[in-house]
């Protein structure tokens, strides 16, 4: 006879499991303390290093003083008043405001979890947002004039043929671990990228135009290009400089680097607390102020935090709770939020057209299955543009927070010719053009037919998860039906869409491109790019356009180049290989405690480096 299970047994079991749990928890606790101890050790080591280097400086100063440097003091005083580099002038202006104060954090949210923040290995925008604060390049663009200014480079020269760029580096730049940044690091960065063992095929492709990078002494670098290229200065000057002493060991074991999640160190104003240990499961990224930052203006914010909030509703709620400091809204939501008194009273909002914002378009495929499609006739494409009532799209789908796109060039850039205007909706002109192209309703069913009697019917491929595209397509279906054209929406999964693009197997597709500060149209529309894998998937071929674009790209004289871009734009406007749809505005809410947030020609200055936004002392929320 077995003994029945009694309450006493239950108590015993409960006690035993409680004991087990306690031991487990205590083990966790001790483990965490160990981690913290090693963290503290690292900080102490860092401080010891700093003290040592400081002592060295003092000693050398001492020796110089004893060696009679005093005599030359008056001339030395001139060197102290080092002029402020132009790239820091905006930050300096912010620092001189009356309510300027250092401190507080900037907390933002990413919609997608990061896979890695190691430079070169990472490929998404989010990782580059983080790296932007850590890695510095030789030059930066002025956000208003869009001119290049020296950051790490003190000065630079271009050879007469436009092929060689010489940069003189500052001699006081240090990485966040105290090591100096020299020409060797710049050369190393290029060599590192070009090393086939490193998983940076994308960057390798970009820098393929560079023939060599050579150091000339400790603080001078020479970039040689293979051919004249309009964007060469931005290629050379915009390269994020990697620390040789930190990344070089990984050349011995490239796999470790390629699979790494958080190997990030640079000379920028912020740094990872531990440049090696970041992992995606930390639930966000945190950068702290680089205590050894070399720049003449120190960044005001103590920390930068990025949280991962995948759900849209949760992100808005988090912004309402003031746990994140910025929120990007969509048009419909933006309008609703503007009426929310509580939200608007403690946030500032911005609606702006970013220069690099990009545009959406419908691409008309001119060749399908090796036969010219009905969109091969420019009159048909023009008619489609006349039929696409873009003002209505702006008003109804984007609620006015967008503008009609005229061409791939932003109307705010010098590449755009102000004389070119967008085609207005015009049913009559469209019908006339279609009639001229040989389309008429021959069987009286209200649908246009071509000469062979086949109805004008086509499929429009769009990305199924894009809500705006879904609404857009329904509107277009109505508009085209007015002219007797049958359009069938075809929602498509992303990987399937890529496959269709690759095989050029579609009638029409709606997509978007991002722009640069100077937009290159070679990849999308040059006839050489109709080859397999090229981005000219609409099979647009124009000899005139090809010639003009080739000239523009190889021209390093800006004025001549702009004239060429405008010429290319006129050809595109006539040919309408795409029907350019709209350029959307960026709609952002920023917490009110951030001051000096302003719009520039590039966009909002919230994430600019050098940092120019700050929180006045009275409004600071986070302290360390």
């Amino acid at each position, binding site marked *: 006879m077995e003994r029945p299970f009694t309450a006493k047994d239950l108590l015993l079991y409960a006690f035993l499991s409680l004991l087990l749990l306690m031991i487990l928890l205590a083990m966790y606790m001790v483990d965490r303390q160990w981690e913290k101890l090693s963290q503290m050790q690292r900080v102490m080591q860092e401080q010891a290093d700093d003290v040592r280097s400081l002592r060295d400086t003092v000693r050398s100063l001492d020796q110089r003083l004893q060696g009679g440097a005093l005599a030359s003091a008056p001339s030395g005083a001139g060197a102290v008043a080092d002029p402020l580099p132009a790239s820091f002038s905006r930050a300096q202006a912010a620092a001189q405001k009356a309510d300027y104060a250092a401190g507080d954090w900037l907390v933002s949210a990413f919609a997608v979890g990061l896979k890695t923040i190691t430079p070169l290995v990472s490929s998404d925008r989010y990782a580059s947002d983080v790296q932007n604060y850590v890695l510095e390049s030789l030059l930066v663009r002025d956000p208003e004039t869009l001119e290049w200014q020296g950051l790490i480079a003190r000065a630079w020269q271009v050879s007469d043929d436009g092929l060689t760029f010489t940069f003189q580096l500052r001699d006081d730049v240090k990485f966040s671990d105290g090591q100096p940044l020299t020409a060797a690091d710049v050369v190393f960065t290029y060599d590192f990228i070009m090393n086939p063992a490193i998983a940076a095929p994308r960057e390798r492709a970009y820098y393929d135009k560079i023939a060599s990078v050579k150091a000339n002494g400790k603080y001078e670098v020479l970039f040689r290009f293979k051919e004249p290229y309009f964007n060469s200065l931005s290629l050379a000057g915009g390269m994020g400089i990697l620390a040789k002493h930190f990344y070089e060991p990984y050349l011995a074991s490239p796999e470790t680097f*390629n699979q790494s999640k958080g190997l990030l160190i640079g000379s920028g104003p912020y740094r990872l607390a531990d440049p090696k240990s970041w992992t995606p499961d930390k639930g*966000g990224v945190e950068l702290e102020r680089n205590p050894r930052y070399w720049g003449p203006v120190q960044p005001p914010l103590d920390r930068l935090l990025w*949280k*991962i909030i995948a759900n849209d509703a*949760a992100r808005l709620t988090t912004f309402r709770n003031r746990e994140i400091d910025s929120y990007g809204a969509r048009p419909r939501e933006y309008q609703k939020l503007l009426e929310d008194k509580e939200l608007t009273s403690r946030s500032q909002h911005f609606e702006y057209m970013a220069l690099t914002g990009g545009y959406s378009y419908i691409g008309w495929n001119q060749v399908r299955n090796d036969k010219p499609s009905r969109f091969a006739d420019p009159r048909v494409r023009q008619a489609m543009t006349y039929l696409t009532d873009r003002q209505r799209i702006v008003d109804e789908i984007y609620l006015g927070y967008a503008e009609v796109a005229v061409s791939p060039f932003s109307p705010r850039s010098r590449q755009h010719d102000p004389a070119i205007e967008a085609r207005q909706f015009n049913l009559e002109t469209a019908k006339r053009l279609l009639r001229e192209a040989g389309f008429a309703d021959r069987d009286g069913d209200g649908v246009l037919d071509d000469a062979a009697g086949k109805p004008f019917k086509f499929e429009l491929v769009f990305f199924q998860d894009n809500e705006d595209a879904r609404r857009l397509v329904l509107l277009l279906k109505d508009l085209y039906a007015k002219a007797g054209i049958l359009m069938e929406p075809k929602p498509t999964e992303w990987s399937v869409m890529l496959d269709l693009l690759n095989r050029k197997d579609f009638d029409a597709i709606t997509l978007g491109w991002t722009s640069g500060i100077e937009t290159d149209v070679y990849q999308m529309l040059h006839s050489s*790019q109709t080859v397999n*894998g*090229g981005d000219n998937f609409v099979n647009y071929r124009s000899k005139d356009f090809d010639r003009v674009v080739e000239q523009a790209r190889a021209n390093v004289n800006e004025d001549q180049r702009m004239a060429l871009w405008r010429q290319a734009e006129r050809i595109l406007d006539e040919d309408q290989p795409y029907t350019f749809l709209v350029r959307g505005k960026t709609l952002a809410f920023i917490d009110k405690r951030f001051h000096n947030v302003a719009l520039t020609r590039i966009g909002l200055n919230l994430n600019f480096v050098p940092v120019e936004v700050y929180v006045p002392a009275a409004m600071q929320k986070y302290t360390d």
Partner: protein
Amino acid sequence: MYHYLIRRLLLMFPTLFGITLVVFMVMAAAPGGISAQSLIEGQNLEPEVKKALEDYYNRLYGLDDPAPVQYLRWLNNVSPIGFTVDKDGELEGFSLTKGSDLGMSFRYGRPVLDLLAERVPVTLLLNVLSVPIIYLIAIVIGVRAATERGRSFDVGSGVTLLGLWSVPTMLAGVLLIGFFASDQYWHWFPTAGLSRREALVMPFLPHWSAWGDLLLLFAAVAVAVSLCVGISLKGGARLRMLLMAVLGLFLGGMMAAALPGEQGYLVTLVLAAALAGIFALVAYTDYAALRTGVMGIIGLFLGIAVAAHFAQGEFVRGFLLDRLWHLALPVLCLSYGSFAFLAKLTRSAVLENLQADYARTARAKGVPERLVLWRHVFRNSLLPLITVAAGLLPGLLGGSIIVEALFSIDGMGKLAVEAVQSRDRELVLSLTLISGLLTLVGYLISDICYAIADPRVSYE
């Protein structure tokens, strides 16, 4: 028995082979197929560059090989014995000790094992918390519903659970975040993630700056819990209901007062009435176990709230409590919909056995009803529950994509869906292999449990 076990274990191999083969075939045949395209997705790149990129990935992961070759290579990699391959992809020889390798995910560029090591603990934590809650509540309610068949408890619990089951998780999650994680209503819980940044540097366990606070906490919790349990056990139905209704009214009023801005009387009234109603209903039920349990939990929270209110010193939440605090809403979302199925299953099994001859015999010989239920009937009703429990093992690792997306938790669900969307060959196959293996092991365990629970089942 051993023969049976060995046979079952050996049968797993062809089954797993079949599962992965089918998954691979579907993936390879789907539009888009397996290719490096999704890695190069629509960036402004020149075709030569794109080609170079594609070649690079093809060389690295063998994405352009014929589909059967890709599958066989994967199979060879995961199998602990097989062919070894040198750096250039040439066969070197056959090895019995090469060990199995899940391969590299080409979307992440990292070993699959690394990814799993990152995601499994998160999902496991969520499920380890929610599964016991589901089972406990479902069984407690299901057994009672069977004994009270046709009466108000049966009907009421059935309607409530089915009602909960029919609420979509997406909606419930958004509502929970909107009401209980927002400054506009009650900001009690965090909106996303698994821990606050501050918690990462906190000590693991909670601690108090003043010992008095800890004592106060223990005292308050002890008093409140024993009071509630005492009332539940000893007090009459009227007294219980009255006390609980008053408590509900009070708490409802507090909740309304905690809302930001000025609240109308209506909101206060509705909230107070709703809470009072729910509390009174709990107190009214004559199901002592459920009533005492729920009232005990109410008492526990009450005690904590009182202690927190009167605490003098500083309280540091600690990593552990912070994690639990972040998990509250996700676990709620994961569990609320699952009660109905298990409760109904338990109810029908118990009901069937309650009317069985042996139960009547037991009653006839004078065994008290409570013992009949738990000693005889409940044990015999376990069989269908064991069948369901076979799904528990793979279920522990299977994440919920909806809950994970809602609360920004990086778990297995998201990993699996993203893997399928980007046709990440190694990752999809490894996930299939693991979940398939766990399912089969789960079935095997439940078959063994049958034999233990029911002596009539034998595998000789």
